[in-house]
């Protein structure tokens, strides 16, 4: 079956077959240099804010189930099945309970659906800067996120002029605070522009790209309805069905930058929310035990490093921002 999609996939697979050669091109060198500078900038910023960087966990008996239809990678762990982290969310909460303000540079694996290979924004293997802060609200987390992003963007603008020039990228300076649109307002914004999004699901990629093009600066979408996110996003007590969470969106059509929330830390609530995924809560035994003993409330977010690099460098596809990238269904080195 030779469709346009399969032709495009074959073309991509052909390029990625020798992905190890790319790192020798001036373009790839510039991209990875920008990435390095951005990571440094974010690390320094967070450390100056009192965050501690921890070594990220790689495997565990369970991992984040809220990964939008992607499959988790499993390994045989002495006869039991263990998961490769799809995100470090569960361990972030554990670490936060002891250290207050923490972050990981967390390598994640998500076996994404095949149709994600051509979106230009999905990688099977990627790294996110994943942070969590105790006793914080999602507004506190957003305040950190917008300053963190500004720090990365403005440092790269100041110190990577040569690289940006080589990449042909005009990177605009940004300044917090960013605009905040609620989920409802976003749907309305899209509706009057002729795009219908079913209430209750995450904003589809194409719609997100469109709104990201239309609003000329980074902005937050906040207050997603329950059901659109994982069980760990806190529901607003005064507004049942609304979650205290957010996505940070890049301008210029680059889509989602970061995703975060205030955490549901109460045992019974988490248990009820887990049922929504149809899973047996027993699977999360250690996590539930931790919640049952009690942990502090917290908020946090994760920001994808390759997607950030894509935005900073103005790349068509996120796979350009990674050494030997892995895309859904493509067997590359």
């Amino acid at each position: 079956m030779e469709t346009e999609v399969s032709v495009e996939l074959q073309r991509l697979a052909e390029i990625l077959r020798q992905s190890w050669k790319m790192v020798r091109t001036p373009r790839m060198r510039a991209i990875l240099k920008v990435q390095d500078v951005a990571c440094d900038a974010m690390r320094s910023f967070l450390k100056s804010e009192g965050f501690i960087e921890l070594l990220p966990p790689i495997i565990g008996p369970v991992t984040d189930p809220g990964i939008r239809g992607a499959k988790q990678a499993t390994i045989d762990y002495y006869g039991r099945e263990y998961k490769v982290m799809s995100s470090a969310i569960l361990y972030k909460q554990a670490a936060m309970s002891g250290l207050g303000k923490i972050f990981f540079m967390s390598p994640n694996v998500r076996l994404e659906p095949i149709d994600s290979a051509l979106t230009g924004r999905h990688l099977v293997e990627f790294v996110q800067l994943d942070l969590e802060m105790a006793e914080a609200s999602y507004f506190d987390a957003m305040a950190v996120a917008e300053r963190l992003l500004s720090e990365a963007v403005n440092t790269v603008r100041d110190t990577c002029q040569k690289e940006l020039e080589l990449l042909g990228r005009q990177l605009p300076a940004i300044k917090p605070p960013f605009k905040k649109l609620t989920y409802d307002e976003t749907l309305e914004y899209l509706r009057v522009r002729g795009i219908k999004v079913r209430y209750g699901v995450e904003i589809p990629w194409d719609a997100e790209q469109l709104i990201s093009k239309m609003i000329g600066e980074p902005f937050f979408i906040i207050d997603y309805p329950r059901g659109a996110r994982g069980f760990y996003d806190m529901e607003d007590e005064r507004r049942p069905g609304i979650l205290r969470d957010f996505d940070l969106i890049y301008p210029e059509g680059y889509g989602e930058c970061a995703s975060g929330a205030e955490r549901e830390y109460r045992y019974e609530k988490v248990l009820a929310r887990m049922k929504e995924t149809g899973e047996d809560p027993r699977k999360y035994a250690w996590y539930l035990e931790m919640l049952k003993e009690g942990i502090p409330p917290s908020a946090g977010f994760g920001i994808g490093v390759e997607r950030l690099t894509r935005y900073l460098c103005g790349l068509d596809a996120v796979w350009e921002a990674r050494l030997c990238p892995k895309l859904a269904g493509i067997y590359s080195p």
Partner: protein
Amino acid sequence: MSLSKPFLNIFLALHRFYSLFTDLAEIWGSYPFREIIERARKGVDAIYPADVLKPSIMLLKGANIYKQPTRYATLDELLLLPPAFTPLRLKKMSELLREPIFSDVDLRHNLGGFNVNMPVMVASMGSVQVANKISLEVARGAARMGIPMGIGENVATMWGYSRRIRSGQPCFKERVMTYLENLDGNVGGLTIQQSVEDAYNELWNKVYSDPDIEPFIEKGLIGFEIKIGQGSKPGLGGEVRLSREEAERLRDKYHLSEDPQNTLRDSIERHSAPGTFVPEILRGMIRMMRNNYPRCRVWVKLGPFRDLPEVLDVLTSEGVDAVWIDGREGGTGMSPYASMRHLGLPLIAALCSISRQLESRTGSTSFIVSGRLYDGGHLVKCLCLGLDGVAFGRPIAVSAWVAGARGVENYLRTVELEAKMLISALGKYRVQDLSREDLGCLDRDIAERLGVRYVYA
């Protein structure tokens, strides 16, 4: 006084023999096996009463249409009532420029987001050995007939996802691909259930990211089905047998009937939980599915619960693609006697309870029912009541056992032909023209609840 030992043994042996005989007779008598087998073997010839006797004698004795009585009303309580004046037949005639006959009836329809050749689906059969054994024949037959098919719980967990765990028992993906590859174009559709065990292994995520299934997901031919109960055991979960190694691997996560390390048995039972639902959990689950699997249909299977109207309100407001209600007559293959005797609403009572929703249909949710339905008459009666289709389970399984995929096709053709005859008798030629005016009921109370005429009025 006591019986002598040999005498007692003879008595017990006789009793055992008698019990076996009566059990078999009961099983045989409680279900129209003969009728379905005849259909599977002979195809459409079987829809006329056949007999070993000569047609002339048949004429005298009449066909045996009297079934043994049940203690609750069934769809047999309803009759189809053709009119003499048939304006829609006139309309059809002007379209065809000739007198329409029954073969002009168009049964094509949309069922839960799938295009179908007739509004019938193959009920989701799960991992039970007898069903799994014939599942590839069923898949082939259903696909060739262009009707949707469901795959029930625990198939991947019990028999393997893409590799067989035991020879002779097809694995999950064989069932999936056999169905999908036998489809003719975009007619038909496959729905997949996920039990708690399947969810542990992320069955839906696996399917959604499977390169072989991807083209069919892209065509919109895949649906995921939430199972909230089964006809004959609403409120009870299924039963799974795990191999000892499997049990050992999963012992931390599940309640098992015994410790796999301290048993000599090869397999260990795990009684599934029925699942815990409140409106908020159900809503959250549906949204999660829409979110995670935007290109798949969302189906929900319900048992005959007393709060069906409330559940349907949640499901229709969330816009699920299909709701399938299984009456207490359905899914009797693996249910405890006690639940079959005492639990749940008969299908017709379930239909009475959702009469309001059936009357004021808005939105795009399809309504499907099942529960000991097996002929074209059952299908047409359900369509008249405002349902979008029916699901057949056991008739399909019996047909596949006696004559393979050909049997399934033969059987479905008989249903198709009967449905066309009956619909044309009502002076109608399209599924959507059928309505309650075409029905009469033998019971005054049921007639009133369903909003159909009382035949003796």
